[in-house]
């Protein structure tokens, strides 16, 4: 059908979860199409204190890779995470919960949020999150196992908190069963074609590995797309104050909360990611405002525990100008470095892989695929960036860090989104969104943004209908939460049964 050679030899260079998730995905999907995969593994950068916190879509992605949830949880010391609890230090801003689920259910065909907003304007004093089944269950230490009734009420979803080293090892062990050629490398050099594309990688100065397509899964090192092909990064520094994170380990909770907790500190924020083995701590700050020592002090105070395995890392939010250049595709951190808020890293990796598979070249002639991949990935990354920016731009926390964050530039699509929300309680629909309208509403509302008006069609609904529906929703949530197993109990049974 075509004069071009089918593309059949793919080389993935990388390390840790980026590498092994990529290898699993490409191998599973394309093995039957005759694609041969070589995985070149660079030395790990992981530390025992690293915890991977994930977004809900990873579950479906894992399912495509035949990864069983029970064995995953067991292998990674994992736990479930139903959302993010934002806890303020400032007394002016109440806590809020950003859950992976629906907030309220439509009332007489109208979206819940404006109904809640109007009722609140008229004296209702029940927080938005109390209408979110997922949030209430999580805050009560419960699982939320969906059934027909919960599905009729709305979406409920979860992510995971996994020990990153264990997760990477688990993915690697599966990759080993897929017939992938796996090579360990200390150092890799790149052999280029005359046209600038990559001809082969030279592993540790001796082994030459040829390929038609090279995937750069080396994280921020960007060994191929950055160091070799010299594709520049566009800095997103103008949007973000965080330029450094402290990563550490706190003791395991006796009862493991099924959510992450993000605590605003005067000069940054502190996240706890509990799982069965430990509690991951991330403390994000600006080096211009806090020294590492001050950050450690702040992280210790915010975590309320003694921290171990402390390490410090720079953060340079940026997007690669072209994430696919020549015959090299960058996924994960080599393509885009995102701010640490909202735990989006693995999801950004997943998006890169999903679109690489859906645009996987038919032949060596793939300029169209490359153009589309560059277009669509930029769009996805920018929408994630916008959601992250919203957290900083709208925060009302005290402290120099927060003041600086508020004073930064806001990307145009986000300022449009904020303006539409302020004016009309509406989430402007955009393509390629990672975060649902529920998430945007939860974030905006949690940060104290109160819309000036609501869509006038909800005024047809009588105040009594609102009250009836609010009462019904609260009773439903209360009943459903009580039916659920505790997170601790569920983890115990999951790990016990799958061990047998």
């Amino acid at each position, binding site marked *: *059908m*075509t004069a071009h050679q089918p593309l059949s030899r793919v080389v993935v260079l990388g390390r840790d979860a980026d590498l092994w998730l990529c290898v699993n995905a490409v191998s599973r*999907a*394309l093995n*039957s*199409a*005759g*694609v041969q995969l070589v995985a070149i593994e660079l030395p790990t950068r992981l530390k025992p204190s690293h915890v991977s916190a994930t977004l809900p879509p990873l579950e479906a992605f894992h399912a*495509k890779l035949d990864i069983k949830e029970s064995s995953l949880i067991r292998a990674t010391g994992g736990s479930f995470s139903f959302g993010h609890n934002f806890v303020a230090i400032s007394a002016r801003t109440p806590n809020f919960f950003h859950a992976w689920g629906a907030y309220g259910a439509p009332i007489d065909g109208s979206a819940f949020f404006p109904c809640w907003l*109007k*009722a609140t304007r*008229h*004296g*209702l*004093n*029940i927080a938005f999150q109390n209408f979110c089944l997922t949030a209430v269950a999580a805050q009560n230490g419960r699982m939320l196992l969906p059934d027909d009734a919960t599905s009729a009420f709305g979406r409920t979803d979860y992510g995971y908190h996994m020990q990153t080293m264990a997760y990477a090892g688990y993915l690697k062990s599966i990759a080993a069963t897929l017939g992938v050629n796996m090579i360990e490398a200390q150092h890799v050099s790149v052999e280029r074609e005359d046209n600038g594309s990559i001809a082969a990688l030279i592993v540790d100065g001796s082994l030459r590995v040829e390929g038609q397509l090279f995937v750069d899964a080396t994280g921020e090192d960007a060994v191929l797309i950055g160091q070799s092909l010299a594709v520049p990064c566009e800095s997103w520094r103008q949007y973000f104050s965080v330029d450094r994170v402290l990563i550490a380990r706190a003791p395991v909770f006796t009862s493991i909360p099924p959510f992450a907790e993000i605590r605003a500190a005067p000069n940054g924020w502190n996240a706890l990611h509990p799982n069965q083995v430990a509690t991951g701590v991330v403390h994000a700050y600006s080096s211009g405002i806090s020294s590492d020592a001050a950050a450690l002090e702040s992280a210790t105070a915010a975590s309320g525990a003694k921290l171990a395995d402390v390490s410090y890392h720079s953060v340079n939010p940026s997007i690669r100008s072209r994430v696919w250049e020549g015959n090299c595709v960058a996924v994960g951190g080599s393509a885009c470095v995102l701010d640490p808020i909202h735990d989006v890293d693995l999801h950004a990796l997943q998006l890169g892989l999903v679109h690489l*598979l*859906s*645009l*996987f070249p*038919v*032949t060596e*002639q*793939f300029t*169209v*695929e490359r*153009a*589309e991949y560059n*277009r669509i990935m930029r769009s996805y990354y920018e929408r994630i960036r916008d959601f992250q920016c919203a957290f900083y731009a709208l925060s009302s926390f005290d402290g120099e860090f927060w003041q600086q964050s508020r004073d930064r530039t806001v990307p145009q699509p986000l300022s*449009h989104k904020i*303006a*539409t929300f*302020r*004016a*009309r309680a*509406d989430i*402007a*629909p955009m*393509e390629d969104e990672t975060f649902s309208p529920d998430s945007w509403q939860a974030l905006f509302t949690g940060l104290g943004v109160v819309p000036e*008006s609501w*869509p*006038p*069609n909800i*005024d*047809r609904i009588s*105040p009594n209908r*609102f*009250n009836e529906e*609010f*009462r019904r929703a609260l009773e439903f949530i209360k009943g459903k939460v009580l039916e659920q197993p505790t997170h601790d109990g569920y983890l115990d049974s999951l790990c016990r049964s799958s061990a047998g």
Partner: protein
Amino acid sequence: MGEAIRDDHGSAPFRVVIVGGGTAGWMSAAGIRRQLRTEDYAVTLIESDEIGTVGVGEATLPHIKLFNDMLGVDEAQFMRETRATFKLGIQFCNWNQPGDSYIHPFGAFGEPWGGVEFQHHFFRAVQAGRQSFSLQDYSYSVVAARSNAFEFPNEDRKSIRSTYSYAYHFDAGLYAAFLRSWAIERGVHRIEGQVCDVSRHPTTGDLTELTLKSGERIAGDLFIDCSGFRSLLLGKIMGVAWQDWTHWLPCDRALAVPCKRIGALTPYTRATARRAGWTWRIPLQHRTGNGYVFSSQFINDGEARDALLAVLDGAAQGEPRLLRFSPGRRDRAWQGNCVAIGLASGFLEPLESTAIYLIQAAVIDLLRLMPRPGSSADPRLAAEFNRLNDMQYERVRDFLVLHYTSNSRIGEPLWDYVRSMPLPDSLEHKLQLFRSRAALPNHQYGLFARDSWLSVLVGQGIVPTGYDRLADAFTLSTLEEKLIEFRNRIQTNVDAMSAHGAFIADYAQAAEAAASEEAVA
């Protein structure tokens, strides 16, 4: 439960004034009246019997049913009153080259297997020489349409009979009249008259008051311009510039004429490519609507008239009426306190029956973004409305241009021009993606869905050189079995459907159409 929720009272009703009573005007009026409280919003519609509407028959998209359902309209009654028939898709004849024919259905092609879209499996079988059917044969609604059959879609999502939806053909003039009585019964104030003067606020430039020929003055807070091509308020008064798209869509005139209905009632619109444009055929209960959309650069009005009259099924009912238009849209549909809906905001030729859809989308967006009583028009709301409106128009435009640009009608000047014209980048990119790997546009918002693109891309003769390699997961013999099984499932189910004509007669036949049916027999 906290204190009782009170309703907002105190401000005077917000005054919405609609200029123009065609489909756009009455859909806007009905939508507002259905969704917004009369104590909050007063709706006045100004129309003039002296200004005609086209009213020869209009084809719609399935979305119209959502609008009617929102109003709570009884489908059978609506169909009787508008002489409506069902529509499963559009048949395109001679578009790639003379003799060709394909249907763009309101339905799916095949089904995804192994998480991979159907067209990849289809083209894989084609490339392996294991495909004896055309893509069209894998659409339930295409096969049903070709058999002149109709049934309501099944609600069981697992059934193949759930894989389509339907729209209507109706008399647009009667639809406007139907909505007019619906809206007037519910409190829309209709004024017969013509606007002769418009007052604006001296500093903001917002519209404040319209003066009619009768001398009557109508004040308002928000003005909806449904004045058609004249764009009386948005274009003429607010001076919002026109973006011309003639270089992509050269047709600038249409001749329309109804004719006597002959033969079986087809459940699809027909669009037939002609030397200088294309002709439409829209079957209604009581007659057939026809028209010739053409480019005045390539044919004169007289030749077009003769060409149209030569292709009618039955005797023409009157002399063809000429419409002049230019394709394109206003830079902004909402400016200040003036919102244009319908032809006053933009025009795209009726090739894919998008006119009423674009009205509907604008009405629904306006309902969400409508200023509240006591407030003035908010530029933030206008910005969101305009963003959505632009997206709708541009996506429809690209889809229309696709029908023209990919053709093999070599030697015909119009068709030679559109084949070689520079395309919008957004379309060029979509074409390349399909050619190289059978990938389809995948938007979450706006028209058109993937299967629509697939039908027209393939119908216009584009053959992809590759397909998604994830499709290789099946063996070829398994694939062949699945394809045959799917084909059989379609045929068995279509065989059990009613004839479209009989279905209409049973469900929603207008009294006069029944009479003419007897006369035909």
